[in-house]
């Protein structure tokens, strides 16, 4: 296949296009690209300043680095391998490249393919490679109908004139060729991506080992991150129970520095596991690098900066909600909710249980949601050690969170609570007339919103009963069964329900009112009137 490259090169990327690429894509590099004879010229050109300006890095899988190393002892490729190592080293020293992956990763080619398959629905991805076969497979992903994505996958290669996009995906020709059509078929087969984390059992910690911190970092200090990257701490942004959040010299990242007594060996191990297996997803503030002080002591971690404000402070207090987003109607709220659910699903699919889902660690920046406090997520043997009553399933109420691992069922309860509280902004599902203690209400499953003619007549006063009344029947039924009968829908089920709701609102004419806080009950259909002998 490597025999028929397209004859004429497309025009190379100018500085502006390179800048857009750096700003909007995750850029991966392949072994053959760094080892190409033109690589040195390309890597010492405008790329470093573009990357610095965009505060971004190239990504090289560990596998690629290992392949380069292997070539340095191969007499045939020795020279280009040495140049490649030099490029990698100098880029890493300047914080322009990071290495990700594990020793057990497959060969670079299949690694790229599986990475791109997995993440192409979450971000724009670019691959720099000279390998025509690989480029075709990767570009073929754009044509895959199995998964619709609003993101792009692009491949670039070096030519004598500079960095050029690979010729457009030749999917038509590929269909004619038996060999490539087989390939396309393989790509389209929905391949369940491998979860980053393994299901596990609770780690037994004999005794918490508290790590020393001889110098507590403060604004202005320089810390060292992965790959010896230097990070200068900026002003304090927030203080919490566990640590302090600082702005950093990298405008898109913030640092969490733990309080002294919170620095345990276990926490460090968990963070290392998270950094080594990053879930790269826009607006998910997953730890990106461990931070150490100048004594090489672990002090905290670096993570993407979140925007907006906690859902509790924006959406769950009606006057503030309406002041902050005066133009919102239910369409916006539903889109926000969908974004939240999809992120939860991605995490759950990687065997990550958020555990402490609550309106203070999900942020809203208009319809975009940011997930923060990810260091408390449950993964492998590390439990999520915190939680709040409202989001805790009845069967684990009063249990100490650090002593067990939560299950998907527990997570589904929290997700259902969140869905309810987004639909009835700020109202916990179990608040009701005459209800005292939220914990008692949850244990007794005293859900007080009606379904058809079933009602305990304790629905809270105010707009809540109107909002409830105006929800689509399917959604009401799911919530009712979940909170009264304990039949908890999965995250995907909720995504379906919300998409259905969105569909009902956005069809013309809408069959459901789009008002955030409707002031009337839903008009009863004639069918329902006759079925339940309701009199108006």
């Amino acid at each position: 296949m490597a025999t028929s490259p397209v004859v004429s090169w497309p025009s190379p990327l100018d500085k502006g296009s390179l800048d857009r690429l750096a700003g909007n894509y995750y850029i991966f590099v392949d072994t053959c690209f760094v080892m190409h004879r033109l690589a040195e010229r390309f890597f010492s050109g405008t790329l470093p300043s573009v990357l610095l300006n965009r505060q971004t890095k190239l990504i090289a899988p560990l596998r690629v680095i290992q392949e380069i190393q292997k070539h340095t002892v191969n007499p045939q490729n020795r020279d280009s391998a040495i140049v490649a190592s030099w490029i990698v080293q100098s880029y890493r020293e300047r914080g322009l490249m990071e290495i990700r992956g594990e020793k057990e990763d497959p060969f670079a080619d299949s690694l790229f393919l599986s990475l791109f398959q997995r993440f192409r629905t979450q971000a724009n991805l670019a691959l720099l490679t000279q390998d025509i076969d690989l480029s075709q497979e990767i570009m073929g992903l754009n044509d895959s109908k199995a998964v619709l994505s609003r993101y792009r996958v692009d491949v670039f290669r070096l030519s004598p004139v500079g960095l050029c996009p690979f010729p457009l995906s030749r999917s038509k020709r590929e269909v004619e060729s038996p060999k490539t059509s087989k390939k396309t078929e393989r790509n389209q087969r929905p391949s369940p991506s491998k979860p980053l984390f393994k299901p596990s059992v609770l780690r037994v910690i004999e005794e918490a080992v508290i790590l020393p911190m001889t110098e507590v970092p403060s604004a202005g200090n320089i810390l060292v991150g992965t790959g010896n990257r230097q990070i200068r701490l900026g002003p304090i942004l927030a203080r919490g129970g566990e640590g302090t959040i600082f702005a950093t010299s990298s405008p898109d990242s913030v640092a969490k520095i733990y309080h002294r007594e919170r620095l345990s060996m276990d926490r460090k191990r968990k963070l290392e596991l998270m950094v080594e297996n990053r879930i790269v997803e826009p607006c998910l503030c997953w730890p990106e690098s461990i931070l150490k002080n100048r004594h090489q002591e672990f002090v905290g971690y670096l993570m993407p900066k979140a925007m907006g404000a906690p859902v509790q402070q924006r959406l769950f207090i009606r006057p503030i909600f309406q002041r902050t987003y005066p133009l919102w109607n239910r369409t916006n709220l539903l889109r926000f909710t969908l974004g939240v659910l999809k992120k939860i699903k991605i995490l759950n699919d990687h065997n990550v249980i958020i555990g402490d889902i609550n309106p203070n660690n999900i942020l809203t920046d208009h319809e975009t949601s940011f997930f923060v406090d990810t260091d408390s997520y449950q993964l492998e043997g590390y439990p999520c050690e915190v939680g709040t009553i409202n989001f805790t399933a009845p069967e684990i109420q009063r249990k100490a969170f650090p002593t067990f691992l939560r299950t998907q069922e527990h997570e589904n309860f929290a997700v259902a609570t969140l869905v309810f509280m987004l639909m009835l902004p700020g109202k916990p599902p179990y608040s009701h007339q005459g209800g005292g203690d939220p914990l008692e209400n949850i244990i007794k499953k005293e859900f007080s919103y009606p379904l058809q003619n079933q009602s305990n007549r304790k629905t809270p006063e105010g707009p809540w009963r109107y909002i409830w009344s105006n929800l689509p029947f399917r959604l009401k039924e799911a919530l009712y069964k979940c909170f009264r009968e304990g039949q908890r829908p999965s995250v995907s089920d909720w995504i379906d329900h919300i998409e259905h709701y969105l569909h009902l609102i956005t069809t013309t004419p809408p069959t459901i009112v789009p008002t955030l806080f409707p002031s009337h009950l839903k008009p009863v259909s004639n069918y329902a009137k006759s079925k339940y002998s309701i009199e108006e």
Partner: protein
Amino acid sequence: MSSTDLIIRKEDLGTNPTSRVPICLVLDCSPSMSGNPEWGAAVAQSNPTPIEALNDGVEHFFRSLHEDIVAVHAAEVAIIAFSGIAQGIADFQSLSRVDSTPRLMIETNHGGTSLGTALSLALKKLDERKAEYQEAGVDYFQPWIVLLTDGIPTDDTHLAIRADLHKRINSRRLSFFPIGVGQGVDLRVLSDLSPNRPALRLQGLKFNEFFEWLSRSVSRTSQSIPGEEVPLDQDGIKGWGSL
């Protein structure tokens, strides 16, 4: 209270889903708080007088809560001023609907310090508000009573409600903060009403520091979930109080 007030109070319960933190400030306004020994002050104090410092403190409290976007929708502050008699100066309602801080005045017509009368009025008001929360289906945190007094009780009314206070506090249905002001107060009397937390003495007239601490505690509580234990900021107490 006028009927419009009642309607507004109820409407807020309907529209604002935030879990409430009801706080009843029970404040001694007897003549001794004037700082004038002729009116019974243990030590002469002016510029500011104790009542002026108290007013500044309450104002500071309201202002701090207004700066916290969650707390201002969660906190409901009622104020009871007392001497020989007790009267409500402000009723429970969401602070987001309160624009001005009520001012306290020395009660010149009624001398004395009737602790029990004041505390039983506070309990009655709390019970009324709790019933309103329940009727509306709004969650709430266990209510707080903050008592600030500079004197020794002049009657035995506090002995009559001692058992009721103890029962509520022990069953975690009430948080009680008794604070003594000045040298004329008997902390043992206050501590006797408070089974799980000894009375504290305000250092000098550090009302501002006290109310700053109180507003932080309210903010922290409002960020948590009803039913959860919110540990008090013990270190913060050192900034204004002593045993």
